[in-house]
């Protein structure tokens, strides 16, 4: 009875307190209108004359809010290294205002940027128990990068492969192709060709930032995230900010690009709807290292793209509806055939179409509970058209039906999260579901119905002490193609549970500046439809899918130390050293399985191990920024029967320099990367060497008219690298077979003009 009375008394007290509340709420959001979690703000409490009575360092809660009961005016201050105000904010925060929202630009937070990948709300990267690398909009602009390939080629921990037709693909932690998940606004990108996504199809005109997480994120993002995750965050409307931006770019190798975007923070004064819209065109005329041939080493490309996003903001919820479209046309010409009578050749036209719809809704239930629902629908279509061209007359005839091919890929993805923060802020819990239906239609895939994958996952950030943070995660997966029946005889044979995906991440704040992280994660990748049902058998080909494939699984271990120190107002240093080990089993690869019938089939090849060290040191002094990074990655693969053992090591180093003069505010940039001797494998499994190369870009940025105009000029690939020697005995499908591998299209002077209105 006493206990009941005590509880009643407490509840009454709370109710009374509420009734008498003088609570005032400060909401802190980022450029995306997303609440900034655990963000430190200094509140200075003022007397009526404006004199500071006392100050208090507070951090935002799970909703990005700071609550105070003070009735005094408050002056708000932010550490300039963490961010700056996006829109003019009245200061002080008057005591008559119950609520105040401030919007911050956080990308100036040079040693501790904000990230969102793997969590529901933006938070400082150092607060994650896993390591996140953030490439800010500013850095992307200074690189003069036009697409994702040009950004990632300056990252030493990422290996890039380029194919003139299939585009660029990446490797993270020695794992590539299907094992790296590319997300756009946390939605998986579709349209893999030969297992790879062409990242050059992601224009940078509308990108807010890029986040890279190395190591498996399968617990949160499901299949394909064994090697890591690259998440591209696009711009979203900002309240009360209207903006028009145009970018134009031209260079010496034939790129001519233009794009424009505009945003209306609020469609009208009272409206809560914001609009952001962009469109652009990128044209590349092609590069041919041997002008005597008709075929080009780098194929001509034209890209058209655009997107429109509507943001509807309510008091307790925010809704974003976004649609984006993309079209790319590549022309691939064969060499001319002079046949005594006339001259003929073939043209292949590759047309790619992407349509992406996204509906993202955030709900704030109360101070500790949030919901997010993310529903997306993506379509991808790649149409190959082959014509035979009479080069004398200029006429074209469509060749036989077998030469034409259209691949259509659909994906419906729906995710939901519930995030909960405990009252003592010691536990941030994120639980969610993800369903994904993907189908592919092409004449060479025999299965018409798609693959359905459903996952339930849960992850928690547990602050065991101010120094120790633990993040256990688990994902339960159902896949209509894979898994085992947990209760055979009881459940129907069709009911299968795929592997349970656990992970455990640990962060130890050894000192104020030094964090030590360690993690174990399990990764998995289910075979895709093509690997299961591909069928290309004719008189010259015998390539078949394999319905007996099983899932790839991986164990990943990462240990890292992360030192970040703002030494004083003008200098700061960061240092990061990480070591990883990946043990992949049942890796899926296309292999020649029978010489006699020339049968190539997707098979689980056995084991694939990779281990490596990544290091990065960054130093800031006034307006100077120096970043030196390097990576060493060792890969081993072994067939189940031990017959096919391969081992190769890749070393990369990078040096980036940026300096901004005070007056005039001109910036100079240097981005460079050395890629050591690399290895590739022919279809037969025979390894070949690729010679080392060094690529460096240098540019200068000049802001004019109060930064309304930014002119950037420079030289990409200063040393004119085009091809490197390769010991491959045959060329790849879209590469030359002359012993050279295309790396870049040569020294390239460029100018770009950005206009902000």
């Amino acid at each position, binding site marked *: 009875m006493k206990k009941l009375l005590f509880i009643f008394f407490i509840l009454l007290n709370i109710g009374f307190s509420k009734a008498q509340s003088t609570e005032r709420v400060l909401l802190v959001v980022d450029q995306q209108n997303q609440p900034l979690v655990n963000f430190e703000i200094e509140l200075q409490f003022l007397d009526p004359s404006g004199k500071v009575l006392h100050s208090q360092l507070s951090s935002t809660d799970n909703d990005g809010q700071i609550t105070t009961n003070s009735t005094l005016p408050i002056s708000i201050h932010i550490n300039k290294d963490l961010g700056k105000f996006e829109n003019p904010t009245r200061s002080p925060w008057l005591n008559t205002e119950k609520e105040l929202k401030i919007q911050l630009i956080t990308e100036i937070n040079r040693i501790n940027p904000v990230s969102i990948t793997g969590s529901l709300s933006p938070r400082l990267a150092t607060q994650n128990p896993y390591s996140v690398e953030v490439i800010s909009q500013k850095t992307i602009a200074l690189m003069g990068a036009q697409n994702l390939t040009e950004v990632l080629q300056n990252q030493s921990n990422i290996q890039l492969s380029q194919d003139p037709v299939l585009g660029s693909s990446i490797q993270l932690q020695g794992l590539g192709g299907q094992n790296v998940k590319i997300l756009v606004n946390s939605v998986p990108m579709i349209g893999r060709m030969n297992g790879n996504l062409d990242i050059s199809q992601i224009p940078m005109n509308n990108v807010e930032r890029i986040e890279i997480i190395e190591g498996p994120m399968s617990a949160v993002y499901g299949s394909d995230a064994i090697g890591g995750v690259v998440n591209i965050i696009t711009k979203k409307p900002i309240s009360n900010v209207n903006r028009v931006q145009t970018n134009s770019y031209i260079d010496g190798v034939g790129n001519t690009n233009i794009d424009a975007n505009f945003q209306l923070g609020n469609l009208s004064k009272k409206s809560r709807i914001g609009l952001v819209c962009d469109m652009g065109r990128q044209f590349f005329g*092609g590069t041919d290292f041997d002008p005597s041939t008709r075929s080009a080493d780098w194929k001509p490309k034209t890209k058209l793209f655009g997107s429109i996003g509507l943001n509807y903001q309510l008091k307790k919820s925010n809704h974003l509806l976004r649609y984006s479209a993309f079209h790319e046309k590549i022309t691939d010409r064969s060499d001319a055939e002079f046949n*005594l009578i006339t001259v003929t050749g073939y043209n292949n036209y590759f047309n790619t179409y992407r349509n992406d719809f996204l509906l993202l809704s955030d709900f704030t239930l109360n101070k500790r509970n949030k919901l997010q629902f993310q529903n997306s629908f993506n379509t991808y279509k790649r149409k190959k058209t082959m014509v035979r061209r009479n080069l004398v007359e200029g006429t074209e005839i469509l060749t036989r039906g077998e030469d034409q091919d259209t691949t259509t890929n659909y994906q419906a993805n729906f995710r939901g999260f519930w995030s909960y923060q405990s009252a003592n802020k010691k536990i941030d819990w994120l639980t969610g579901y993800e369903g994904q239906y993907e189908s592919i239609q092409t004449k060479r895939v025999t299965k018409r119905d798609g693959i359905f994958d459903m996952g339930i996952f849960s992850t928690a950030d547990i602050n065991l002490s101010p120094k120790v943070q633990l993040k256990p995660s688990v994902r339960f997966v159902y896949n209509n193609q894979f898994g085992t029946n947990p209760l055979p005889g009881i459940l129907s044979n069709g009911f299968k549970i795929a592997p349970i995906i656990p992970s455990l991440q640990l962060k130890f704040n050894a000192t104020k500046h030094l964090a030590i992280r360690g993690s174990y994660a399990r990764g998995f990748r289910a075979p895709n439809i093509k690997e299961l049902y591909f069928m290309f058998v004719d008189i010259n080909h015998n390539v078949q899918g394999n319905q007996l494939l099983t899932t790839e699984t991986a164990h990943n271990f990462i240990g890292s130390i992360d030192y970040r120190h703002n030494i004083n107002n003008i200098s700061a240093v960061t240092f990061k050293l990480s070591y990883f080990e990946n043990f992949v089993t049942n890796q899926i690869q296309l292999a020649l399985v029978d010489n006699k019938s020339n049968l190539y089939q997707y098979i689980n090849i056995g084991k694939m191990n990779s281990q490596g060290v990544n290091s990065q040191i960054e130093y800031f002094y006034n307006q100077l920024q120096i970043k030196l990074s390097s990576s060493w990655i060792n890969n081993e693969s072994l067939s189940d029967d031990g017959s096919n053992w391969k081992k190769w090591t890749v070393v990369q180093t990078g040096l980036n320099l940026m300096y901004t003069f005070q007056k005039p505010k001109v910036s100079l940039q240097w981005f460079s990367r050395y890629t050591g001797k690399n290895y590739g494998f022919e279809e037969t499994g025979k390894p070949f060497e690729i010679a080392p190369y060094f690529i460096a870009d240098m540019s200068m940025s000049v802001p004019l008219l109060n930064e309304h105009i930014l002119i950037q000029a420079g030289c990409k690939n200063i040393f004119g690298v085009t091809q490197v020697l390769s010991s491959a005995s045959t060329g790849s499908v879209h590469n030359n077979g002359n012993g050279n591998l295309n790396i870049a299209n040569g020294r390239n002077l460029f100018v770009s003009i950005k206009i902000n209105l």
Partner: protein
Amino acid sequence: MKLKFNPFVLLSIVLFTFFSCEKPESLYKQPTIPQGLQTQTFAMGETYSNQLWFDFETQKTTVNTYGNWDIAFSCQNEPSVVICGGKNSNFTVAEFENVNFKDIDASYLTAAKWKFDQPSGKIDSSAFGRCFNKVVDGYEGKSAIYVLDLGEDSLKSFRYIKIQFIGVKGGAYQFKWGYVNVPALTYLTQMVTDPSKNYVYYSFSKKDVVENEPVASEDWDLVFTTYKESVNDPNGVPYNYIIRGALANLKTISIAQIDKGIAYEACDKTFALQQKFRNNADEIGYDWKEYSQSIGKYAIVPNRYYIIKTATNDYFKLKFVDFYDDQGRKGYPKMAWQILP
């Protein structure tokens, strides 16, 4: 400083970039067609179902369906046996000495040393080799027993054929054969040769002669057909490779392949007379085309052409100009040639 927005600047940038388009390809100059150039397309078909027998002198082409045979016996000069054409998917032979025909069973297959046939038409490069010895009244077969692998496409029971050549007498081959996996079935077969043909053909499944050579051996120079050759995999292990190309009639022509020196257009009889002519049936073969990975099509090897010497000492220069028809269908080799006066 207040920004003065000038729409014309923006418009000119937009127009400039939107007007940069892929340049239309310049037209090539029409080649000067050499005088006396003759061309012909040989419609093997996309599935290569047709064989085309061509005679330079009459320019007559005879078409028949690709033969359904397993083994062919030479009708000319020294007796020989070939297996590198035909329908079956393999063309390997193993030879066993000092063993009785009836004793050969499946246990022998594990120790078999398989030999591939080569399409040159020469006895020494064939899988059977010289399997006959001359005797007074003809030829008698060597004492060896041969096992022929017809390939994976055959039913397992009928895949391996054991053969013993008895001899060639009175213009007829006589041989005993049976199935390795079905010892009870043994056949004694006589193949009567036809002096007007190069080979006579036999099918084990039909247990009968198969018509495959529709014209007399004097009346054709080249045949466009499907045949097989052994190539080595990356580990040096040979395997069969099915190819499409032109085989020469060694009775009527000999061939010189030219890859360098003088281009086709400049080749004259003086140059032709300096060449060494070969008597290999596959001297033209299939490698006048090569598969282009980049476009996914066969392309004609640019500088390769051939000089043909006929039995009557006439000379032609010959070049392949296409492997596709106007619709881009493969299996339509087009040949251009000129008489060298």
